[in-house]
């Protein structure tokens, strides 16, 4: 496989050709009066500094890998704007992954896995383990005064919190290539879905409801082409799961025509802005449910249970001299899927429990340098997950143990600092997440922008702590790394 990789050198061939096409480009390329294209070329390299991934050890990787990621991106964003009423936008990605070609310690793996083979309109033109061409977004906007529609493959983001998904749960994530470590958090890994989205801005009332400001109603419907979370493939440096035991014969539950939809009502009373949200979604993660049989051939269905979600957000700005913005966001699921603790490993069963996820964040821009140029953004966030009757559930089908137990509360504190320097040519940042059960993630970053086109950034990722249950930072310490990106934007 590696020989084939180096012989074909697809990534070496394609990207320079594309690069030559844009190297003389200015900030935006106008192709006539109505069509324009912008985008970037990027190479990203992550050097592994953590321990060997235990999920890959069990499938035959012998030595610790040196490289976590080596990827080249060529992304173009096309905008067709014939008039104010109708616009079309598309984002096309060409990606080459050279990770396993450059690191012989890694086993062969699929760098571009799909969540499932049978559904999800990915608009992917390739079926290759190291090379990907796809139209990741494609939608049309219709602007009719106070009414706006967006139809097509799109991202819908209703959440406001940092490093935590509370209301931002409409689109699934692609964790397959760099988990959740990108500095843009979810932007590069949020998977666009086919949907019709609409928004109506209610005209300002002149009567009894004049105190209600900026009122809007928004909704979306996905007609039935949904995709679950994409996990790293076995063998990937970010592989999150040990292999499924061979005794399970897994059948995907078909739900191609299952619809997802939701709506929200937003507005402002005085200085308090708020939204109320309802979401009818399907779980992004699959759950095994026993159908028949026993060892050595247990028939299970991989189900994506339906979830009804009720959410709200509030934000308020304390004026000078406090100058602090407070944002609260919460989402309640009366029937969140987990595994029934009482069910044996040979007959996994889904249990539905009440779950509340919420977070509160304080933002303040503060001038910390002696000569005030740019203010430092300081964000402190506390997030909590509350699970009812947690003593009856577990997080995996495995026999119950402390390794798959679920706490009734999980608490995470986040501190995010960002300081621009030298006319925003330099940015220093720090993301620090601390799980009160004893795990943490640190991501210091340095970004340098040179002129209109070039961006160089480098980050460190340190995951640590005793708390090593699935999904906790301590369980991911194999992903420690230093990664850098060189970007040419046009």
């Amino acid at each position, binding site marked *: 496989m590696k020989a084939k990789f180096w012989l074909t050198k697809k990534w070496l061939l394609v990207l320079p050709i594309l690069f030559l096409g844009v190297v003389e480009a200015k*900030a935006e390329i106008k192709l006539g009066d109505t069509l324009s294209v912008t985008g970037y070329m990027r190479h990203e390299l992550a050097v592994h500094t953590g321990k060997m991934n235990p999920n890959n050890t069990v499938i035959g990787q012998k030595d610790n890998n040196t490289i976590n990621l080596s990827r080249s991106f060529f992304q173009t964003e096309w905008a067709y704007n014939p008039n104010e009423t109708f616009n079309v936008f598309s984002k096309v990605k060409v990606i080459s992954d050279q990770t396993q070609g450059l690191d012989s310690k890694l086993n062969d793996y699929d760098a571009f896995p799909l969540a499932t083979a049978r559904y999800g309109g990915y608009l992917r033109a390739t079926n290759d383990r190291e090379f990907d061409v796809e139209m990741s977004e494609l939608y049309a906007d219709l602007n009719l005064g106070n009414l706006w529609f967006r139809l097509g493959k799109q991202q819908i983001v209703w959440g406001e919190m940092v490093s935590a998904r509370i209301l931002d749960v409409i689109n699934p994530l692609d964790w397959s290539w760099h988990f959740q470590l990108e500095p843009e958090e979810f932007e590069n890994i949020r998977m666009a879905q086919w949907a019709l989205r609409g928004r109506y801005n209610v005209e300002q009332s002149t009567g009894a409801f004049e105190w209600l400001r900026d009122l809007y109603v928004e909704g979306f419907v996905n007609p039935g082409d949904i995709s679950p979370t994409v996990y790293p493939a076995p063998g990937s440096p970010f592989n999150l799961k040990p292999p499924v035991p061979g005794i399970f014969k897994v059948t995907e539950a078909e739900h191609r025509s299952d619809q997802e939809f939701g709506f929200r009502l937003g507005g402002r009373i005085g200085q308090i802005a708020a939204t109320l949200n309802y979401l009818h979604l399907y779980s992004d993660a699959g759950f095994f449910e026993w159908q028949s049989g026993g060892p050595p051939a247990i028939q299970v269905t991989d189900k994506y249970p339906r979830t009804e979600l009720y959410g709200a957000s509030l934000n308020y*700005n304390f004026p000078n*001299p406090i100058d602090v913005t407070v*944002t609260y966001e919460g989402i309640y699921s009366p029937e969140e899927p987990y595994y029934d603790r009482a069910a044996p490993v040979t007959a996994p069963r889904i249990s539905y429990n009440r779950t509340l996820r919420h977070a509160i964040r304080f933002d303040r*821009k503060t001038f910390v340098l002696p000569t005030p140029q740019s203010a430092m953004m300081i964000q402190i966030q506390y997030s909590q997950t509350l699970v009812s009757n947690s003593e009856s559930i577990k997080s995996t089908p495995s026999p119950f143990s402390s390794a798959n137990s679920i706490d009734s509360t999980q608490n995470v504190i986040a501190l995010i600092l960002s300081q621009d320097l030298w006319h925003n040519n330099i940015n220093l940042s720090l993301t620090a997440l601390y799980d009160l059960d004893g795990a943490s993630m640190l991501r210091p970053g340095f970004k340098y922008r040179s*002129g*209109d*086109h070039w961006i160089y950034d480098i980050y460190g990722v340190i995951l640590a702590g005793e708390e090593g249950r699935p999904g906790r930072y301590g369980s991911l310490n194999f992903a420690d790394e230093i990664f850098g990106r060189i970007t040419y*934007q046009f």
Partner: protein
Amino acid sequence: MKATKIIKRWNLAVVLFAFIFSLFLPGALRGATIPSVEDVVAGKERIPTIEDLTGGKVKVGDLVDKNNVELVKEYLTAAMYETVKRGMVMRMGTQLPPDQLNPPSFGAATVRNRGKAVLIGNAPYYEKEGNLWPGGIPFPVAKNGLEAMCNYHYGRAWDSYHTDPIDLWYVNAKGENYKTIGQEHIYVKCSGRTVEPPFGTIPGYENVYLKRISVATYPREIVGLGQFTVRYYDPGKDYDTGFAYLPAFKRTIRISATTWQDNIVGSDITYGDGDGFQDPFNGWNFKLTGRKFMLVNEPKSPTPIFDVKGHLSKTVQFDQGKKYPRLGWVIAPVDVVEGIPKIKHIYGKKVVYVMMWPYVFTGSGIHATDIYDRQMKLWKGYFQMFGRHEYLNGDPKTPQTPLSGALTYDLQTGHSTLMWMHHMPNVKLDPDKDVNLGILLKKGR
């Protein structure tokens, strides 16, 4: 021979006396011909030219640079004088008559409402508190600093504007334009409207003074980075409401008023510097320190400022690399207002040069601002540019003078930001449909 000597000595004595006398009474030599600012703004006298003011030493069409800047120093802001000393070249232009500077309906409102404004808190009201100012300049002859600043803020000659494109040039001390940021601005004034119906106050927006959207259009990394802000009628009673859209995260977040002190995408301009002075008034003390004739950017340039796509025309000349555009400057009367922040602020002082009625340009009510650091050392100079004499909807009866941009010079580092703005005032915009969170989201993708 002796008599001749005596006559010569007498002549010399007279000349010396006259010279010494003139030092104690500046202007005495030209007192008979130079009208006062008060007479000019009252329409009793025509506005003097630079030739009148300099006794013919500088004429329309002349260039002023570091070699002859002392001749016009009296008519420059502190920062302008410093920039000319460093290499800026000013071309002496021609002022337009007042009725060519702003739409006639704005002038009519100023005349109609003259004497009716009362200042309560930080805002003017019509005759009594609660009656929002219907439009026009509220205090044609300002008695104090706050009244002069209210003339700028509440006496805007535009009801709305759409500025697109905006090019922010980042120019280093060597004069190299090493980075460019694109922006788009949409502003809708909800009170004091005189040009576009509904006039006066838009129903339902009695508490709101203006709504605005400011969004980045390039480079790609920040496309869609924007703010949606509401400024209330009296910021002392209701402080601003603001939201920002962060395209890198596809996230809309609430923002704090401190944002006014932060710079615009790393440029030399803070959000509060924009338009000469955008900070909420309640955070400042103002003092009217005087009124004078000053050189301001010309209202009508002899050559186009922008090309057909709204970007800077290639015909505009520069000095010191791309640092100093060679523009035309004319004499205008200004109120000089000293602002001292009452709140913790990055600045120690601003000196604002506010346009005096009837010499009010459509694009803005401020010509220039000198900005001092907390040690009271001159830090930045901010100059507004015009030069585009246009007609609203092509109607020659409705002249107006949009903004063409703003120059901001950091005099301590040598860095500068040149903001070129294709400003379209008094276009039809609706505060419900055109300025809301949804628009911010849509522009941000």
